């Protein structure tokens, strides 16, 4: 089992998984709700496929019925397995909702894990409506249902491209004293976040640092912006 830890001490479901290359992957496990929605999409798709198959193949007589039964079997037991193996862990429903199945160590699923987690789905659906799976997935940090636990897999959100908004240029300024790495990170984080805050809230937060910066509270926000620009380096 790979070493995982919560990504931060904040209330956050993201997990850190260390890779052999010595960097941490940040995985965000998908909870029951998006997974249920993905399953509903897949169910509808499978239903539509079986219906058309039965209508078309039913006209071919017994050969058609035989083929139709095999097709039903494939749709019932193999639909998820084949999509997860051949489409990088994404059934059409999962792809639509931006989900993906990976091993617990963050690597993509292969045949063994995909087969196991989908055969054991039978138990997760017991006694009705995914009761077992729901209980199991609420009882662990990775939202794993029973099949996931046995196969060592989890469903994650695919990372979305970060929305970057350009910073307005301000005259850079050196920090009044040396900052620790943690302080620098927080300062830059505040600088990027302050455009999403209301001006009043921004000034209130920045004002906390006013005594330290030696400026009146009203100017603290601009001063912090200039220091952040100085840390980031000239453009």
């Amino acid at each position, binding site marked *: 089992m790979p070493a995982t830890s919560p990504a931060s001490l904040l209330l956050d479901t993201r997990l850190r998984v260390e890779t052999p*290359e010595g960097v941490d992957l940040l995985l965000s496990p998908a909870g029951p709700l998006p997974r249920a929605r993905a399953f509903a999409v897949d169910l509808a798709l499978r239903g539509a496929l079986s219906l058309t198959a039965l209508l078309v193949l039913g006209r071919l007589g017994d050969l058609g*019925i035989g083929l139709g039964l095999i097709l039903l079997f494939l749709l019932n037991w193999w639909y998820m397995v084949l999509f997860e193996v051949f489409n990088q862990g994404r059934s059409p429903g999962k792809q639509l909702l931006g989900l993906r199945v990976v091993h617990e160590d963050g690597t993509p699923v292969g*045949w063994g894990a995909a087969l*196991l987690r989908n055969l054991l789905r*039978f138990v997760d659906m017991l006694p009705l409506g995914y009761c077992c799976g729901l209980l199991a997935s609420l009882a662990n940090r990775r939202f794993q249902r029973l099949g996931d636990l046995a196969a060592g897999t989890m469903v994650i959100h695919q990372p979305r491209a*970060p929305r970057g908004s350009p910073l307005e240029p301000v005259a850079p300024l050196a920090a009044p004293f040396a900052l620790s790495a943690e302080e620098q990170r927080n300062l830059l984080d505040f600088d990027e976040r302050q455009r999403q805050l209301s001006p009043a809230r921004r000034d209130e937060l920045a004002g906390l640092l006013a005594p330290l910066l030696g400026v009146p509270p009203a100017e603290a926000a601009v001063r912090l912006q200039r220091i952040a620009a100085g840390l980031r380096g000239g453009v």
Partner: protein
Amino acid sequence: MKQAQFEALHQDEWRALEERLAMLEKTRAASPQAAGFAAAYRRLCQQLALAESRAYSVSLVERLQQLNLRAHQQLYRPRQHLGARLLTLVFAGFPRQVRAAWRSILLASLLFYGSLLGMGLLVYLFPDLIYSLLSPQQVAGMERMYDPDASRLGPYAGRASSDDWMMFGYYIMNNIGIAFQTFASGLLLGVGSLFFLLSNGLNIGAIAGHLLRIGYDETFLSFVIGHGAFELTAITFAGAAGLQLGGALLMPGPRSRRVALHAAAKDCVGLLAGIIGLLLIAAFIEAYWSSITRFTPGVKYAVGAALWLLVAAYFLLGGRRR
């Protein structure tokens, strides 16, 4: 180095990697092995570590982290040599795994064949007992299937040979589905596998006992002996695999239940693939050989015995030489 310089220095590299990833994510044909992808990934890992240790801004670190996750997904794609892996499984892996799992297979066989023979004997001696399991309509249906005067045997007797296709599909859907259920329900502390093994054993035993008692022995036995070698074996294997899952949860040993379950499930993958193979063979034999009445029961018994011997030899001797 300031963040702005760092970004300016590597911007082009990241953009190129992004384009490459978009292509890799779209098609399976594009191979992540080609032309320096691993090297680009390693450089990215280093840049991410640098960005984190130099306390660059969250937006940059997150961008690199996401790029890193996507590249990791592509680099560690499973190697898909399915054909080669299946061949190894057929010629060595499957019989070896079966022998390694002999304890649970013995237990599953005792449960299944024990209940089958016991119930068969009881029904043979006390004929009314069959109605505790099956309704009179079902019993009448069974009798029709194995009527010695029928031209074809098995479910939907009296069908023409063109129906064989339909029955092939039916057997695949029905039997492999049952095997999957027998395996999967082992996750319920083994109780589900126990239930499916016993209920299948009792049902088959009751029907066998009833048909033998009313003198349909020749049609029934000559029908089941051929594909039984594969089908009954596969059902006991599926039960055994399910019992292993349940056993891992009940008796995890020195490991946590979660780790024990994961390890047990991993061992079952090869068995499952083998079971599917056995049941495909069984469905084929059942649809195209067992049901025909052109051959005398003597021929069918001989072929059936040969198939049982073949199966036994495969699991006892297969994959011994390394």
